[in-house]
């Protein structure tokens, strides 16, 4: 029984890490209506940046998380402005290819520059084991989880209660009407893409404490994020958070009861089942089969 509860705790904490990545992904999809296949590579770039900052300036990943979030905000904004904006009215397959192209280029660029070795910032804060009662976990996991909750809350408040946030939600529902109501579409898209990418930067700082950087690290996390976002419904913020916790639990439980090699199989099967049975996800915008 205590193993089971320990697994639940592990799963929820892991879900917190996924949540930050997934919120960014779902925000970009919800507003810009583009599935960002390069999302994982943004994470990878962020993790290398964190590692470089730790290596050369001795910054703790939690400190550089802020810097890297800003850097990725700019990168995301640029990607929207230079790659996505010209293709807004293009066919879906063209947009897919565009983000896939960025993803391929970034991944291989990392391979060229850093090689295939893993790079890890060695820190103590964030890696100490903690225990509450019979359960143990790593302090960084708790910090990540707390930050994830804060990020979700702030994003939610921003979308609900600020003028800009309302503009983004209006855009998500109808691009043309929002433009008629005075929302500057291009600027809002750059903002949304920037925020989505910025959150990934934040996640990079948090994850770098426990995970090393390597060229395909983004694929590892982002395939899971896609599963989460489809599960929760593309474009849904609560969906992304609940989906993250759910997948975190599946990851942890399936890893123990089914076997570590097959846990991903389990959640990809969940993913396929959701796509096939209810492509709008649990809280989605209803665009899955369009």
């Amino acid at each position, binding site marked *: 029984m205590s193993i089971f509860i320990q697994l639940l705790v592990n799963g929820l904490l892991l879900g917190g890490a996924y949540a930050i990545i997934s919120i960014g992904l779902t925000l970009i999809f919800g507003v810009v209506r583009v599935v960002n296949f390069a999302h994982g590579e943004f994470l990878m770039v962020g993790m290398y940046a964190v590692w470089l900052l730790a290596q050369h300036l001795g910054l703790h990943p939690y400190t550089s998380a802020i810097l890297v979030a800003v850097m990725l905000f700019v990168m995301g904004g640029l990607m929207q402005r230079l790659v996505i904006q010209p*293709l807004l009215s293009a066919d879906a*397959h063209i947009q897919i290819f565009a983000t896939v192209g960025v993803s*391929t280029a970034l991944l291989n660029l990392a391979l060229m520059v850093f090689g295939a070795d893993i790079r890890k910032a060695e820190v103590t804060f964030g890696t100490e084991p903690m225990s509450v009662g019979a359960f143990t976990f790593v302090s960084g996991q708790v910090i990540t989880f707390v930050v994830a909750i804060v990020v979700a809350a702030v994003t939610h408040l921003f979308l609900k209660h600020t003028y800009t946030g309302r503009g983004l939600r209006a855009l998500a529902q109808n691009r043309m009407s929002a433009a008629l109501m005075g929302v500057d579409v291009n600027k809002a898209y750059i903002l949304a893409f920037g925020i989505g990418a910025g959150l990934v930067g934040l996640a990079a700082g948090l994850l770098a404490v426990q995970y090393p950087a390597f060229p395909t690290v983004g694929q590892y996390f982002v395939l899971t994020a896609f599963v989460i976002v489809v599960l929760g419904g593309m474009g849904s913020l609560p969906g992304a958070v609940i989906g993250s916790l759910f997948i975190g639990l599946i990851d942890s439980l399936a890893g123990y009861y089914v076997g570590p*090699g097959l846990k991903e199989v389990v959640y990809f099967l969940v993913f396929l089942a959701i796509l096939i049975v209810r492509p709008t996800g649990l809280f989605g915008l209803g665009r899955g*089969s369009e």
Partner: protein
Amino acid sequence: MMPPILNPRVYIGLLGLLSILLVPLAAQSPFVYHLAIQVCVFAGLATAWNIVGGFAGQLSLGHAVFYGIGSYSAGLLVAKFGISPWIGMFAGAAVSAAMALLIAYPTLRLRGPFFSLATIAFLEVVRLLVVHQESWTGGSAGLNVPLQIGLPWMIFREKWAYLLVAFGFFALALAVSWLIRRSRFGFYLIAVREREDAARAVGVNAVRAKIAAAVISAVLTSLIGSFHGMYLTFLEPSSAFSLEMSIQIAMFALIGGLGTVVGPVIGTVLVLPVAELARGWLSAFGNGTHGFVYGVLLVVVVLYFPRGLVGHLSERVLRLIDRLPNGAKAKAAVLPAPAAQKPLATQGQPILRAEGLHKRFGGLKATDNVSLTLHQGEILGVIGPNGAGKTTVFNQLSGFIKPDQGSVSVLTENGWVSPRSPEVFAHAGVGRTFQIVQPFTGLSVMENIMLGAFMHTRNRAAAEAIAREVAQLTDLTSLLDTEARSLTVGGMKRLEVARALATRPRILLLDEVLAGLNPSDVTRAIEMIRRIRDAGVSVLMIEHLMQATMALSDRIVVINLGQVLREGKPADVVNDPAVIEAYLGKGYTHAQTA
């Protein structure tokens, strides 16, 4: 079917293909051989992918799953049981075909990125399972193919032998793709890609077309995978089932031109050698170089040449080629159009019956006990104020909406039948147009109409003949060669009618074909509808233009609030107080009496 060899388009194309064989044979360098073999393999894979990704527009990013299945099936059969890969590759193809069915059927209704994500997920699942089943797949460590040299083992000492076999597989994929693009099946795939509803309205079984494309593509991919496995002599899950390879295959097709036969080949021939050379020149940078080149190229192509090299350059190149001797277009033989369908009922007898149709959308009764009958040789006008439920009735009459209660039956050669889906309605002789026009914009006017004609013939020439005849009836003859997207509104509406007519319907359902037309187009359209009726087709039309409806219709049905309000001769209907009230409200009658 075979094109004339003396046509420059044909011999230039064949020479281009043969040069993939001849250049390395002349150069005799191992690197050039390797390059040519890789070009053959990837051009074949891209061509196979294009059948699903280009023709059918389903952007699979998990195609490596079929490649992997092909290479692993052949590899395992030869390693464990000593079965020749020439046999093993068919086992792989069978597994791939089954896998394609398994993937295609549930993902049919997914579009764009969702379909792509689903294909990636399938790829990941299979890869993880292959890694996990270590005991017989070799797991992540990989699998060595036994080095038995000789033709039966598909493993050779000389590179030229590999090249010949690779070229053979490539030629097979290309031939299949070419045949599909020219056939009715190819037309159907493009129609389903562009507008699934309109395709179903002309009798295309969209589900069957997509699944067939997926299976054919999977089988070809798998066969090539089997060969490539033997060429590499080493299989590992991380490269055989890789997302990277799936993307690469799709990318070659996109760069060359999606949905064209030569596009994937040209994309591969141009890009693959450049990337391989870059890998050599920039080897100091390690492994990522060619991938980086691919990624950057992909973004550039998408931004500046989204239709691919073939899409942007083919017209210019073809014009150059046509200047060569013999280059004038050969005129296709003009066949006489097959005879029109004979009317089954005598004038004035029922040919379509709707009985007690009910349809609710949530709390809204969109159709509330509607019954109507269309008679042979008449024009039946369906009118009603906005929101009365006319289009909902119309969609039930053509199978796009299933009624909650009630039935629609149609008189066919086999007596009265009640079709269940749009394509079955089309085959039962019911043609329809769409209120919001749905032309296949990428196709010419001629090809649009041919799509309808293909319902009764597989033969291109016969379909063309029908198209010409229908174009005559719908005033489109002079526009046959223009692209559908450049038509005026009036032209598009007539094209809608033409496409429906080309299916040789006995019943034609017209959904507001006069709406939005200028006065001269309205006059043309009215004459056209009369001509259609006189040709023996019974017409049911929804229309808002009162005068035109009054002038055209033999009978009129008025629908209001989802119910039939009145039915009768035009003159009686317009003077009916209930009808006037439905359109103009109670105030109007009060004002009249006052």
